[in-house]
């Protein structure tokens, strides 16, 4: 055990928890998250005053905003009791180090790790067993040669300390302000951990920068913040992985992702998330693309009890481009409400959205998207394509795109199809000697291929395997 971990055990887990318990009785009557909690988080991180101020402001906004409840067909959030958020944080601070023993992990998570063929060491890391203090990213392949070129890739908490000027300018100011929505405000108040990526001008990072699962000192990996800044004409591919289920006794994840794609730059953000089945996954992810910049989102949303996630891109500069490729998979008891938002705010901007979803065993998938073309965004074009595949009659699949067009010189197209898995296709494959399960898995693999081919091979393999696991036992 490292000294960091000892530190964690001594000071954080016990001492601070006790401290907070005392405090709790002092402000017990206050509902929900309190200022005191925020001060404790900030103090513990030794944050500069301005960050504390931002947190407190976000908290006030969070307290003022209503829960989103009036969207048509939205996931049921009645269980997400804001008043319970603090009580949920506390016990987790207590067990922040995760479980002490691999054996204490829930069966389904262990099972998944085993089936994914992940080595024991990595399993420990992924499951948070022996979590590390101050959240050095568990799995990070940042190489020295990139550092030499001025590329910065570090934990967000550290970035606040080491690069305050950059962080101060960009952190929840222009891209995802806390006022954006209730969960962005919550995130702004209690965010912790996450990644900071900075790529200088004219620099191409020609291998993916990866951040795998990580735990940080607060044990609140569920509120991680990712800030990516790609300077002019730079290029980077960032991969955030939870391609194994995150073990968590929390039931709320509210992350924030902000991406600045400066003139001529190219950023790809890929993520494959597979949350535990008790998690509410309510995120805000947004990119601002300047002149001739390109933003690409590749995401796989799996797991979770309910997900509400609509990565968005603001095409701010002329000639900016956005591509969205998403896949959602919902099994029993899951409600995956996801989509994409694109704001065309300048001429000659272009976006494409390709969304695929699979629903089975009573799962629900929903594509909820917004394409906004502002007055003056001449010669902009957008094309949205959604395909839903349904396995059985307990599942549901909805498509709810919204298009707001304020400019006439545009080309806007939306198309969606829904269908069941083709009996003829299954029959054809069976007649070639595949059994029913394999045939269906092969069809699904073909269906999601546009996504997997965008991912580095190891992620693509894992995504495929995860989907196989999800489908296991449910077929035939």
């Amino acid at each position, binding site marked *: 055990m490292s000294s960091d971990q000892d530190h964690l055990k001594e000071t954080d887990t016990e001492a601070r928890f006790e401290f907070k318990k005392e405090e709790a009785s002092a402000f017990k009557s206050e509902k929900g998250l309190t200022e005191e909690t925020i001060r404790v988080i900030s103090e513990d991180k030794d944050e500069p005053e301005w960050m504390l101020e931002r947190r407190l402001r976000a908290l006030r906004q969070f307290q003022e905003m209503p829960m989103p409840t009036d969207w048509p067909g939205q996931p049921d959030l009645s269980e997400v009791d804001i008043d319970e958020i603090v009580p949920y944080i506390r016990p987790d601070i207590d067990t922040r180090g995760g479980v002490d023993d691999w054996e204490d992990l829930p069966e389904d998570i262990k099972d998944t790790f085993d089936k994914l063929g992940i080595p024991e060491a990595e399993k420990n890391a992924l499951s948070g067993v022996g979590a590390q203090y101050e959240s050095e990213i568990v799995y990070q392949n940042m190489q020295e040669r990139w550092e030499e070129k001025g590329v910065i890739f570090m934990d967000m908490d550290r970035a606040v300390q080491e690069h305050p000027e950059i962080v101060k300018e960009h952190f929840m100011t222009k891209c995802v302000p806390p006022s954006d929505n209730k969960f962005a405000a919550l995130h702004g108040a209690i965010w912790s951990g996450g990644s900071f990526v900075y790529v200088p001008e004219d620099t191409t990072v020609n291998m993916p920068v990866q951040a795998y699962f990580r735990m940080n000192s607060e044990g609140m990996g569920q509120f991680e913040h990712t800030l990516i800044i790609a300077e002019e004409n730079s290029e980077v591919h960032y991969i955030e992985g939870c391609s194994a289920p995150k073990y968590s006794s929390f039931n709320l994840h509210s992350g924030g992702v902000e991406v600045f794609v400066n003139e001529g730059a190219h950023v790809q953000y890929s993520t494959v998330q597979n949350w535990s089945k008790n998690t509410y996954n309510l995120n805000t992810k947004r990119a601002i693309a300047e002149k001739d910049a390109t933003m690409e989102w590749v995401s796989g949303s799996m797991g979770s009890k309910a997900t509400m996630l609509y990565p968005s891109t603001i095409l701010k500069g002329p000639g900016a481009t956005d591509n969205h490729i998403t896949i959602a998979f919902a099994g029993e008891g899951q409600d995956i409400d996801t989509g994409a938002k694109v704001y065309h705010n300048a001429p000659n901007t272009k976006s494409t959205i390709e969304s695929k979803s699979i629903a089975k065993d009573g799962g629900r998938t929903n594509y909820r998207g917004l394409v906004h073309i502002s007055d003056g965004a001449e010669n902009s074009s957008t094309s949205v394509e959604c395909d839903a595949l*349904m396995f059985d009659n307990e599942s549901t699949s909805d498509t709810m795109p919204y298009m707001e067009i304020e400019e006439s010189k545009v080309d806007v197209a939306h198309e969606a199809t829904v*269908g069941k898995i083709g009996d003829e296709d299954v029959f054809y494959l069976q007649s070639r000697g595949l059994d029913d399960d394999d045939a269906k898995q092969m069809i699904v693999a073909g269906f999601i291929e546009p996504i997997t081919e965008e991912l580095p091979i190891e992620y693509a393999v894992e995504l495929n395997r995860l989907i196989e696991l999800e489908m296991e036992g449910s077929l035939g």
Partner: protein
Amino acid sequence: MSVQLETISEETVRQLSEERDEPEWLLEQRLDALEALDDLPFPDVIQTPGRKWTDLADLDYESMVDPFSQTEEKEWEADEGIDVLPFHEAVEAEESLVRDAFGSVVDPETNYLTALSTALFTTGTVIYVPEGVDAEDVTIRTTMNGRSLFNYTLVVTEKSSSVTILERQETGEDLDGSRYYSGLTEIVGGENAYVQYGSLQDLDQTTYNYQLKEAEVDTYGTVDFIDVNIGSRLTKASVETHLNGDSSETKMVGAFYGHDDQHFDIDARVWHNAEHTTADLVTRGVIDDRARSVYEGVQNVGREAWDTSSYQRENTLMLSDESEADASPKLIINNHDTEASHSATVGQVDQQDLFYMTSRGVNERLAKNMLVEGFYVPVLEEIEVEELREELTERVRERLRQRE
């Protein structure tokens, strides 16, 4: 949520009912609707976070709704063999029929505006097509003269009957200030019956217009809607079909042309509630000047709706830079044995087509007009009522002539 109207009370409703010598049950229904007003929301409009696309709660109903000045001219043309009666004649002549059907498809308490309509309607039409009767054309023309008009259309078709109905709304004499037209249409589509209901809304541009047309379709039945919106200052028009019988079908064809500062909020919704049902939704609209269109199309496939086919297409053509178009085609799928698709596009007149035509010697203005007219062709092809097809073409031409 709701708007308190000083000008209407229980007394108002009792007086309207008494003047029309209505039976007790109808008065009761009106009073129930009136009482429900306070608790009812305004019609659903699509909204995205931070934005409501049509705000019906903001209209000044107080100044527009004048229950005792409802005047109109109505003309009916119909074939023999079916009953086409003014609403209050039908209440006397076919009381049990009207009583059974009234409010059976459109729930008066659907929203604030339907309840208001039920409480205050003074005029309307009942069309009854008995079993096996093939009625050709029924035409209803309503010319609104007063400050407000609440109209009710009830269509009941029996087994294996058929009918084609064309209903038109217009405004007569000019009035200062704005006015309000509200129309409810309910259609009971019998087993194996075929109903085609076309509507042409051509109210003047001082009129605020709310219309809900809803149909229920029995086994092997078909109800087709054609909904054309040309006039009004603001329109909220919903066309909805419930495919309740096995193998029932619906086709919903929409067309609109907005100019000046017109606002159209159009809905087309279908519920697949039975097996082997088919729906086809086609809407095309042009918007010009500062006009705005909002379109929502919903295909809702229920859990028991095995072997569903459902298609939706919506296309908007923008002719000016100040116009705005919003579209949201929605698919709600609860049965996996479904073949469904939807698509929507927004764009301007195709520059290549325009170039091709001008290079053939057609002047640009004429070329553009031809392309706009041509844009409606896929919808015109779906309109089987010749009169409506011609009228739409004529109104589109008229609008194009008015362009500078």
